[in-house]
């Protein structure tokens, strides 16, 4: 199968830049898989795991991301994540911190739509917490 070029960046650094076979991303409307020659798409992300399959026969590299976007165009996938932690280094405290930041933001904002969005994120992270 063909490969696609993946650039995975956070504001602090370039995390991952390789040709990969398949990437599973937690889109805000639901998880989806991107293979090579996927049609152009821009999607926002919800908190969750990005699974990168460099090779389908091998185990994926998994990162936890909080917020961000993916942009797929002409076989070039760009993941812009606000923050990313490799799954092995993710601790319960990380998740706790993330929930607290969102909660703080949700309490501070007057905007209902924003509040709903943040609450949704909190729920997602809480679900992940249970899973872990």
């Amino acid at each position: 199968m063909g490969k696609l070029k993946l650039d995975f960046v956070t504001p602090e650094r370039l995390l991952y830049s390789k040709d990969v076979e398949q990437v599973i991303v937690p889109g805000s409307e639901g998880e989806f898989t991107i293979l090579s020659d996927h049609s152009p798409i821009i999607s926002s992300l919800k908190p969750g795991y990005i699974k990168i399959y460099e090779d389908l026969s091998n185990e994926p590299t998994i990162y936890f991301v909080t917020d961000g976007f993916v942009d797929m165009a002409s076989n070039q996938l760009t993941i812009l994540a606000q923050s990313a932690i490799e799954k092995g280094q993710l601790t319960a405290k990380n998740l706790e911190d993330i929930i607290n930041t969102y909660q703080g933001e949700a309490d501070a904002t007057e905007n209902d739509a924003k509040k709903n969005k943040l609450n949704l994120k909190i729920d997602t992270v809480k679900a992940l917490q249970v899973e872990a």
Partner: protein
Amino acid sequence: MPNLKELKNRQVSVKATQKITRAMQMVAAAKLNKAQESAQSARPYASKISIVMANLLSSMDSSSNAPELMVGNGKSDTYLLVVATADRGLCGAFNSNIVKLATQEINELIKQGKQVKIICIGKKGYDLIRRSHEEKIIDFISLKEVKSIAYSDAEGIGNNIVTRFEEGEFDICKLYYSSFKSVISQIPHAQQLIPLPIGNEVDNDDSDTNSSLAIYDYEPEESDVMEDLLPLNLNIQVFQGLLENAASEQGSRMSAMDNATRNAGEMINKLTLQYNRTRQAIITKELIEIISGAEAL
């Protein structure tokens, strides 16, 4: 003729100063390395997001319903100038260059009858601007406690700006910072944040971008994506600006301290020469006194 003790004292004090400036230079060099590294590692994200923005802009169907963050609110009465400087001095003309550029713009805008509001980042710029435009400063942010600038710092500032924009406090926002060209060259720079300057991202001559003028699928809706992406883009611009600023500050300090160390060295040489001459003159004088005393016997 200055006496010997006085000369010696001056020599000692200049040597002490030289030690300090040399230490500061070395500290600045080490910090510069770090700052440059983080500025460089932030660059991929910034360039990626500008590519994504360019893609988005080119595939937008119509600009009539475009969000205000991107196209502005149609007015240009009130300007918000975000002036980013350092929290510490002793870095050459770094702070004053940025403030000079900003002050020029402030005066220009006032002449045109516009309203000006200022947000200061960094204590030094705040002190300088406060002298002439205190009533225009609406906020002051100090990053003194921050060792190395993290994205969250920029996020806070960015959100602050966006909130103020949504409340209609200003129409146009510009960021002032110093862009880092090299260790000896930092150029004060103004960048428009709101509305988004259209066009300059596209000259990012990446061959990938030209071929990707395809129609995008949006998930969720285009407007929702835009709503998230635009503030994010703004935050990133602020972040990039702060990082460049940090690198420039260290670079500027390094060359300023290098100069100071060299000047101190020159001064020490001069003082040593003067000291030795004076000492010799005193010895000669004493000898003459002894000899003429002996002759008198």
